[in-house]
């Protein structure tokens, strides 16, 4: 009898191990397939609709704009509703502009880990490097048709401080993302839907300029140099420049 029980337990362990391996293998296959599909995409141009549900706002905020990506390192995020805002990343350099201040701010992401973590997140989700993200996220296959992946930051990931999970839904052809849902630690959430996705089209030069989203900022063009603030080492929301000291 003991022998039978031992055999059953052993068989059960083997089945479980195989199942676990099969699961890992499935995920690896899916991620590899995704990377392969998305590797073929060299440029993306898409409009987006973002719904932000943040505790600081009394109602959900809908944001509309355009996103451009050009491999290897260019990324542009232009918002034209409800505000006019542009953010362009080129490698480790980031520039942002908004109509309120009318100035362009330059930030070196390499020198600013906080900015890198914050702004790097969006680029991360829109990129195709899902395999390498396994060192920073626990990835779970939620659905296969359409493909849905859930990412939960690991302990060593700075994003763990504010992101609870990120769910990415892919297009049917798995060549790009259809939507991203980010749930933050405090309960805030962001849903990002991509519409009119154009893959491997020539990206206009104006896409990489500040405040040059197709409509209605077109006429603004780039800002004169004297408006550019070089702030590689401080947050963008500094109002006061008076130093903090030691009293009188």
């Amino acid at each position, binding site marked *: 009898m003991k022998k039978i029980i031992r055999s059953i337990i052993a068989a059960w362990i083997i089945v479980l191990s195989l199942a676990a391996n099969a699961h890992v293998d499935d995920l690896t296959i899916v991620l590899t397939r995704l990377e392969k599909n998305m590797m073929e995409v060299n440029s993306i141009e898409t409009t987006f609709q973002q719904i932000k549900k943040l505790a*600081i706002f009394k109602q959900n905020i809908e944001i509309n704009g355009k996103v451009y990506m050009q491999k290897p390192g260019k990324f542009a995020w232009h918002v034209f509703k409800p505000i006019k805002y542009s953010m362009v990343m080129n490698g480790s350099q980031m520039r942002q502009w908004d109509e309120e201040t009318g100035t362009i701010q330059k930030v070196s992401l390499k020198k600013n880990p906080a*900015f890198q973590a914050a702004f790097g997140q969006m680029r991360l989700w829109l990129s195709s490097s899902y395999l*390498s993200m396994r060192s920073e996220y626990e990835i779970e296959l939620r659905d296969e048709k359409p493909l849905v992946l859930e990412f939960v930051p690991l302990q*060593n990931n700075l994003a763990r401080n504010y992101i609870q999970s990120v769910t990415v839904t892919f297009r049917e052809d798995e060549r790009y993302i259809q939507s991203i849902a980010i749930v933050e630690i405090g309960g805030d959430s962001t849903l990002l839907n991509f519409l009119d996705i154009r893959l491997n089209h020539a990206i206009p030069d104006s896409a990489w300029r500040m405040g040059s989203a197709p409509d209605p900022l077109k006429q603004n063009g780039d800002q004169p140099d004297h408006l550019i603030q070089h702030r590689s080492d401080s947050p963008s*929301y500094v109002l006061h420049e008076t130093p903090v000291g*030691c009293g*009188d």
Partner: protein
Amino acid sequence: MFDKYFSSAFDHISKNRNKFHVLLIVLIGLSFWGLSRIHFENNIEKMLPANQEVQRSIRFLRESNISDKVMLSISLKQPAPDISLLIEATDELADSLKGDLVTDIITGMPEGDVIQQVINFMGYIPQLTDKSRLESIGSGITHENVDHKLAQIFTQLLSPGGGFMMPFFRSDPLGISDEVFKSLRDLTSSLGYRVNIEQGHLISEDGGHTLLILETPVLLTDGLGAGKLLAHIHKHVQHSSHDIVVKIIAGHCHTVSNEKIVKKDIMIVCLVASTAFLLMFLLVFRDPRAILILLMPFLSVLLSINLSAIILGTLSYFVIGFGAVIVGIAIDYGIHVYVAKKTAGPRSIITIARPVITGALTTLSVFFSFFFSTVSGYTQLACFSIISILICLLLSMFLLPHLVGEESRPDRKGILRKTEAGIPAQHKWIVAAWIVFILALLLSMCRLDFNTDIRQFDGSEQHVFDDEAEFHRIWGNETEPAILVVGAPTLEEALQKNDSIAQEAFRILGRDNFSSIASIWNSRQIRVRNLQRWNDFWKGGAERDLRQYINASLDKYRFSSDAFDPFFNDLYASRLTDGMPDELPFFENLQERFVMINDNRCQIMSYFDDTEENMRLLRPLVERDQSIYLVSRKNLSKSISDSVLSEIVKLSFIAGGLILFLLFLLLRDIRLSLLSLIPVLTAIITILGILPLLGMGLTAISIIAAMVVVGLCIDYGIFIVYHYHRNMDTGTDRAVTLSAVTTVIGAGALLFAQHPVMFIIGVTLVSGITAGYASAMLVVPEMYRMTLPHERK
């Protein structure tokens, strides 16, 4: 009179030599036992001039262990497409290295809850906001400004990374803490390295290297420990499961490399010198007992170490290291005694006693001058050297003659054969050639420089320098910052002083150029005052106004009514703390760099670029308070060199004066004294003239070696003058030749050394002794004939 007393003493010891031999054996046995009981010091401060700036800087660097850190630059042999593999390899290596030799490892910045920590730190902002900043905040609380600020927050929240910043906006809508955060960022990056933080690790700008900073209890000066530490690191690099390349950057690499080179040099030198000595003693003296000549100085040093320790209570290792020099000088007495005895019989010892003792006393005067030094280690050196030379003189004069044989008749074989006393044939051209030689060297001396760069003494292998160059290419930080140190018995007192001095330094150098913890943390005294002012400010109407303006704009930007409650809820919640905010791990990391607490004494460090201009600008700040001082590593080596050089130059003059005084006193004849000085003069001019010809500058090391040359050459002069003046047939000229040859062989072997210090000593000794000896043998007789033709006794 002298001969009579010496003769009487010599005869007395001869009669009771067995008793003296037993006494000596007992003393030697006691000395070997005593070696294990002596407290030896390894404190280099003892050997530094009493220059307060130098002493304080050295003590600070030693206590702070800043120089004892080990940096590892790690890369993969086969570069990987992303950083994860390199980080994995780095973490594996870091985990494997921890132990007794590596007590702590910094791999990067703690990321885990850093945002929460920073938000918690915002609770201290009310205590850190000074009067002028508060006035500035007050002037910014207008409807227009607040509306503008909320508009900015709204814009930022809608940006891709907006969610990340939301907690900061809610806790600080006016951006009051921005300046403190900027200072915080500046301080964390003030290590001076070009690093990026990725996945909590220190990554190079090219993304191909990681940096580990190891804390070790192994001191830079601990050669054995440094060797173990490097071996420990190499072992774990080899055992790593990843194919990694690790460059080790640490002072320990220099220690180990220098030690390796010195050991190799010493082996070559010992091999060459021992072979040459043995061959010379056996072939020239043709007597195995001649080896006993070598034994005398070694026994003297052994006895002297014990006697000096009894007198001084302690001895420095650096002083003991000087024993080799003593051996080199003192061996000459044995040679003279041996040659005299073998050439002219046992009683000839009495004949040569006067010149040998005169020579020894003049040599002693060189070391006696060290008593005039401000360096405590030099006093030890003087005591040790004088005792060693006196013992060696006594052993050579009274013990050696009995040990080398009891033959009543001279043993005149080979070089010890009997020759005619008197001056050799006349060659006036020798004097003319000598004058031309001296003039040529004087011309060369015009190009002589003082080289005070202490780095010239670093004989590390080329790969150590190559690794450092590669490291700085990747990570920057070619120059380490200078440090302003504020000391006080308690942390609060130190913080108070630091607050005050930092404000002045900010004013002088600018906030961006002076990295002080005062920019993010102040003394309790100031924080109490700031907090009181903060509370008064907000309770005095500012809170009411701000609420009103925020409420007026909330709808415009769709903010909820409680959007900024975190700010108002915590407005008066700041709690005072003693010392530092220890509950915040990121602050603890900062504290390690800026605060040092040792033996109930607190020191706060601030950093700035190590330039002469910055030092000049900040020096007035530290002059009024003894507990505040500057540490500049760049200036330190120069200050040490300058101080040592000026000390040695001062001592050289004192020694020169003492030599002259003793010479006149002992010889009682100004012309004989001047003749005796010819070899010394020639040797010094030769050394100073040769160095520029070899492209070398004058250094503290060459001056110390030159003092040894003076000590030896004065003996040559005295012996030769005595030899001719007293018409001695004791083989003195041959003894001088032998002593010069032995010294030149020993020093000549140093010319094969790779280590710069040994090479410098070799060049100085060989050139000085050769010139001094040649002038003693060729010029002195000729000059004697020219100046004292009829005065031979």
